[in-house]
């Protein structure tokens, strides 16, 4: 518990956490401001058209979701690499077990990534909800993002748009957390902090291109995190992808931490 407290303090007081949060917030603010300038704050526009997660009028949605792995890893994902490189891990590993250190760091990495992704999306949603009503979009309405009935959470999208937004904010935050663990699990293998932080984005983009889905389903994590759902993701695909990322990272962290020589 003491190691966890220390790691959480370090994660949420790090400069990189604030930088990541700032980047996410700037993208979200620009999206909403551009929407308001373009379409005004009165009239027939509604929440699902204005929220960055479902707004496809501007490039900000794509920008946010392409950068999501970096926004997730930047806050604290590279911290194990830094600790090993500087020798700071020695100070900790004489006061707690390696496994406890690894678990504490993993929790801090997960939570800082969750907040860095979910907070800008959440604030954008609440700001948009303050200006635009929570209407259910008509099926063929211009600028409607109403998802197909076979897509995930279609019922929420149809009946409770704000709930649909909140579900995806939660999912994006949780996926950001496990993606950030990739930075941690490769810390022993990479040669720079930059590589530790950027590698997960490269993996997400390459796997996204290779596994891009169609109407039969989608295995690309890059596509399944975007609430616009331009390809169909089935619930079990999302669950399996999540479990694979989590299991691979947990195994890698456990194997590399358990008997690691702290040099």
């Amino acid at each position, binding site marked *: 518990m003491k190691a966890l407290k*220390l790691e959480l*303090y370090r994660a949420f007081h790090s400069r990189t956490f604030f930088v990541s949060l700032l980047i996410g917030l700037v993208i979200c603010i620009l999206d909403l401001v551009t929407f308001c300038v373009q379409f005004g704050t009165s009239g027939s526009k509604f929440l699902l058209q204005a929220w960055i997660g479902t707004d496809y009028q501007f490039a900000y949605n794509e920008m946010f979701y392409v950068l999501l792995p970096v926004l997730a890893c930047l806050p604290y994902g590279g911290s194990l690499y830094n600790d090993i490189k500087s*020798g700071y891990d*020695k100070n900790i590993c*004489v006061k707690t077990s390696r496994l406890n250190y690894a678990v504490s760091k993993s929790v801090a990495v997960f939570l800082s990534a969750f907040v860095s992704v979910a907070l800008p999306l959440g604030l954008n949603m609440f700001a948009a909800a303050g200006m635009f009503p929570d209407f259910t979009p008509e099926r063929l309405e211009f600028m409607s993002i109403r998802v197909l009935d076979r897509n995930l959470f279609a019922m929420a999208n149809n009946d409770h748009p704000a709930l649909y937004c909140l579900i995806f904010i939660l999912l994006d935050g949780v996926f950001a957390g496990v993606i950030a663990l990739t930075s941690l699990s490769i810390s022993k293998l990479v040669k720079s902090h930059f590589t530790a932080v950027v590698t997960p984005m490269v993996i997400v983009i390459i796997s996204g291109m290779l596994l891009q889905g169609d109407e039969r389903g989608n295995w690309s994590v890059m596509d399944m995190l975007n609430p616009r759902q331009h390809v169909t993701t089935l619930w079990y695909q999302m669950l399996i992808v999540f479990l694979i990322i989590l299991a691979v990272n947990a195994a890698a962290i456990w194997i590399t931490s358990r008997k690691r020589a*702290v040099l």
Partner: protein
Amino acid sequence: MSEIRIENINKKIKDAVILNDVTLTFSSGKIYGLKGKNGSGKTMLMRTIAGLLIPDSGTVTINGKTLHKDISFPESIGILIENPAFLPQYTGYKNLKLLASLSDGISDGDIKTALERVGLDPDDKRTYKKYSLGMKQKLGIANAIMGEPDIIILDEPINALDEETVRKIKDVLLDIRDKDKLIIIACHDKEELEYLSDEIIEIKDGSITGRKDMADGNN
């Protein structure tokens, strides 16, 4: 009262023998000096005692508890091994406070005392990244002696320190030893090592080649 028993420890890294059948015993109330050339195995032995390096064979037992079997790390230890490493964005005091939060019973007063004993000002607002080499070294020593743990391991503690500070550190170490603590140091300066140590242990190519009690000069 602490006792460290090292029995038949062997360690290889990439086919290079780092520690070769090392057997040693350390008791509290003494300062042990490790003497040997660069790459002789002093630092690796210190890392092994601190639990940072897991030997290929052999055991390290601290107060009857075997490291990596009964305990994952020594229960009361302070270390400075190779370069001091701290968080660059925080002051010396803040760095020690964060690390003290991992241990039981280290008060703010203990942290301030440790800083003052090595000649650092606890109220200094400069962050670690603005510290000079000597100040970084002092902070490393302060971290090791903070709360006066039962075992203190210092690898080249007087590197980059001026004469006055070296004198101060020596007094501090002798004072801590007299409180029945166990101190292990490695130092290139033969005179300083002999002045400080109650026993000198010579290491060559990962093996113990000699042990000299400074009180009677016996090998």
